[in-house]
């Protein structure tokens, strides 16, 4: 009678990579709902397109790389990438924009670097940046939120939305400047004037109609993930904190030179999506908790800098990619001290002390 030999530990906790990914997907639901309520069904279409394309690309590449397709598809990582990119893209953007973005995210940024766990750059953000640089026009046409529509207009219905996405009708009349754009182009106006004058601010409360609630919804989703201990608080909190601190420093009491209040920065653009769903991507961030603090803070600073002095409407994608570059470097300097040792080792040092 012989029994099998297995090495310890014999017990395993219930969490699995697929489980983590499923939780992340679940946590994007509030944000998705808010986007749909304020901007119409455009984001839903984005997601549908993105997910279909992602699964197709992933399966094709796995096949080419001769890996078991179903085994890897079931880790849900491709879907997470697709959902995050879909949420970040402007609603009603043409279908081919989504497909090209997903191609770069899944095939180039992920699999050409060796697949899940080996990619140095966040795939969704790579896809986003490629699109932003290649198709600036399509990428800067954001739909007008519900509350800021001119009288008599309403959000597009599903049929209308489909015809926009597949290029039969264009988005004119539905698109308008985002709060971040509005602030950038508002030379000479104090914040107070701006908040009263521009439609998008006037119909909102803190950071522009719709946008503020979308961000709050992502914040909720993020809080759920924190509660579930899917990731640690270090990177998102550091990012929001550094962004907030810089906003206070350059607030300039709301003058015409003001870069916007902390609340404005927290609740506009992709801040919360970035903080809780992008910066927390384990693969491309720093490893240790200390490293994650630095990494998150770096993203926050870059976001503010690019938003305020850069040329692009939003900055999260660039900031994240830049910090992805820096992650190995951060890891090098943040190796924790081992029990019973006086000094932390250097990450890439080869010599044994």
């Amino acid at each position, binding site marked *: 009678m012989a029994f099998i030999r297995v*090495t*310890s530990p*014999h017990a395993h906790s219930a969490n699995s990579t697929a489980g*983590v990914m499923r939780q992340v997907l679940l946590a994007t639901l509030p944000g998705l709902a808010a986007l749909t309520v304020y901007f119409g069904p455009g984001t839903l279409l984005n997601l549908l397109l993105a997910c279909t394309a992602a699964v197709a690309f992933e399966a094709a590449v796995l096949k080419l790389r001769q890996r078991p397709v179903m085994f890897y598809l079931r880790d849900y990582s491709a879907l997470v990438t697709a959902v995050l990119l879909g949420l970040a893209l402007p609603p009603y953007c043409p279908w081919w924009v989504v497909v090209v973005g997903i191609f770069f995210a899944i095939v180039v940024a992920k699999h050409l670097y060796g697949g899940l766990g080996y990619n140095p750059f966040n795939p969704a953000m790579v896809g986003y940046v490629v699109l932003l640089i290649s198709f600036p026009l399509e990428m800067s046409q954001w739909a007008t939120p519900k509350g800021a529509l001119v009288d008599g207009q309403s959000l597009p219905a599903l049929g209308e939305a489909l015809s926009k996405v597949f290029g039969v009708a264009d988005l004119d009349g539905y698109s308008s400047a985002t709060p971040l754009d509005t602030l950038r182009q508002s030379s000479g106006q104090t914040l107070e004037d701006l908040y009263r004058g521009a439609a998008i601010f006037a119909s909102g409360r803190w950071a522009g109609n719709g946008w503020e609630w979308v961000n709050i919804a992502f914040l909720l989703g993020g809080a759920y993930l924190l509660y579930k201990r899917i990731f640690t608080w270090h990177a998102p909190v550091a990012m929001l904190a550094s962004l907030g601190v810089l906003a206070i420093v350059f607030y300039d009491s709301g003058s015409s030179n003001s870069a916007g209040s902390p609340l404005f920065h927290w609740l506009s653009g992709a801040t919360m999506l970035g903080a809780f769903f992008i910066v927390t991507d384990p693969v491309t961030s720093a490893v240790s908790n200390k490293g994650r603090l630095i990494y998150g803070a770096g993203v926050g600073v870059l976001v503010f800098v690019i938003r305020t002095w850069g040329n692009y409407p939003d900055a999260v994608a660039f900031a994240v990619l830049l910090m992805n570059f820096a992650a190995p470097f951060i890891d090098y300097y943040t190796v924790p001290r081992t*029990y019973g040792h006086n000094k932390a080792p250097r990450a890439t040092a*080869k010599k044994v002390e």
Partner: protein
Amino acid sequence: MRQIWDIHGGVHPPENKHQSLQSPLGTIALAAELVLPLNQHIGNPAIPVVRIGQRVLKGELIADAQGIFSACIHAPTSGEIIAIEDRPIAHPSGLSAPCIVLRPDGENRWTDLHPCDDPTLLDHAALVEKIRRAGLAGMGGAGFPTAVKLNPRSTDVVETLILNGTECEPYITADDMLMRVYADEIIQGALLLARIVGSPKEILVGIEDNKPEAIAAMQTAAQGTAVEVVVFPTKYPSGGEKQLIQILTGKEVPSGKIPAQIGVLVQNVGTAYAAWRAVRYGEPLIERVTTVVGEALTVQRNIRVPLGTPVAHVLEQHGFSAAKCARIIIGGPMMGYSIEEPQVPVVKTTNCIMAPSHDEMPPAPPAQACIRCGLCAEVCPATLLPQQLYWYAQAEDFQRLENHNLFDCIECGACSFVCPSAIPLVQYYRAAKNSIRRLDAEKQKADRARERFEQRKERIARAEAEKEAKRLARKKAADEMKSRLDEQKPAAPLPDPVAAAQEKAQTVPDDADGQSKKLGRQLESVQSRLQHLQQQIAECEDAARRDALTAQLRQAELKLEDVRKKQDDLERGVSLPLDQRLQNVAQKIQASPLEAQRNAVATIEKRLAVAVEKMEDAAREQKPTLAAFTQGVEKLRLKLAEAQAELAELERQPISSDSVNPEENAAAAAIARAQAKAAAAANMSAEEKHAEQLQSLRGRVDKARAKLAEAEASGSEHIAALRTGLEKLQAKLAELEQGK
């Protein structure tokens, strides 16, 4: 309330302790055969002192400790010794090892015991001896001989004695049960151990807060004694020795040191109990409390089981169903190991036997890619970066592994437990540790062999030098005689040829010869590495890994070239002793181009001859270096042809006038520089030399002293030898110091 410190990381696996705590501590029927491995502890195996066929009584010594680092073994019951042979034992790799097999006669008759009514009357040595004779070895898991642990180095003062009643592993309740039932005796044991190690300031019993009954019992028993029961939150692996020390004292055991060096001694509660039984009642360690648990059993509980009882017998007594059982585990689910062969016996360290059902312990899901989530780093009690270790272990980058303190990993399994990708991390670490240990051992062996070889070479060289010196001395005498005869006037003091020859003989072996040997070795190792890599690349399927290997290959090729170049240089005389080089250069300067070219041809011819010889050697012995040598020979042949062509050319030309060319000047300058250098080295004053000698001798004395201290602590047999060595060194030192 005493302060409790927290440890880094840790996990909370389901405790599953209630199953085995429903029934009281039980006993089982004696097995038909008891199998007692000679090595149930860390250290030397015990030596049997019984014959096959001999009848023994319960508690009788059947195998004696071999040296200090060992433990005795006693008969768990009365009966007959029926075999002394290899049997499968409980070991992670399914080993067989020498065992004494006892067939019980069912009478369970005790041998004469020597109880001691008042252990306070015994002195340290007597107490330690009693514990040693009882065969005690750490009962928590490792099986460290208790008597050794109770004899710390004279320099280490134990300030805190800790009894480990943590039992942080899920499922196991053996210590819990022991504390509930035998609290008084454990406390007596604690006081006894404290007395043995010199009455430390604190005597603590650490217990996790998930054992309220055990805590209550221990607290009652400890009332009015110096023992303090400390309760702390449940978390795995609080019961690891290093972790428990940190929790109770806030101190960390420095890497590579033992707890005694920071004034702490940890003993398992089971060991304390056994120590008390051994001293008070004279009972040797012949049984222990073990948890028998798992859903493949109908009865789950703790039992007192005689050592040597086969696991299969224990399971049988608890309604075991083999069909239901997923695996049999010795120890807990986090650190225990599974066994294939249920006939293996219970030994001194067996604290749990698990027979989980398939639902209880399903096979591990297939591992996925590491997503660098960092959960593993968060739970690691040693504050390592398990994901990084995993990365390097896969790449077999042993240096980085050591640099990332792989050897501080306690293999607790917390990282594997939480990993969402279900990567068997600990398995990688174990494999890497084994490889590193093996490589180290191999290297040591090679080093020793090389040392021996070099010593031998030196001896031969010295003998030759002496011969040469004698020859020269004779010549000198003859010369002197001759000159006296010739001119009848006092000869000018000649340079002492004897000393010169000796000096030369000493420089040659480690300059030219030694170096060429060294290069030869290097060449061989690089070449075998190249082959190995090529083979690996051919077999490797993973693209990333192949890239890494190719990079290594390229490096090895570079290295090979480097070594070859050095070898060339050496043969051409670049690394020859200084004076010889000077001669060469001088000759070169003097020689006309024609002559120089002739010389060059001659040199190449000589080198070619040597190379061909080597090649033939290699071919005969079928060495892997053959290819390299063949290549070298080919190159030399080409070179020779070239040189010969040039020579022919020169011979056709009329001899040019001896113009002073810049090359000559440069060479002359080089000579001057080298001579100055040699002179400086020779001029090191006697005082400086003396100082240097003094310093090196002091260093050696220090080292010898440290070694002696170590030997004393571990009770090595070399103490006497080391001591005389030290004394000799000290005498020498004193002499030298006086000479100043």
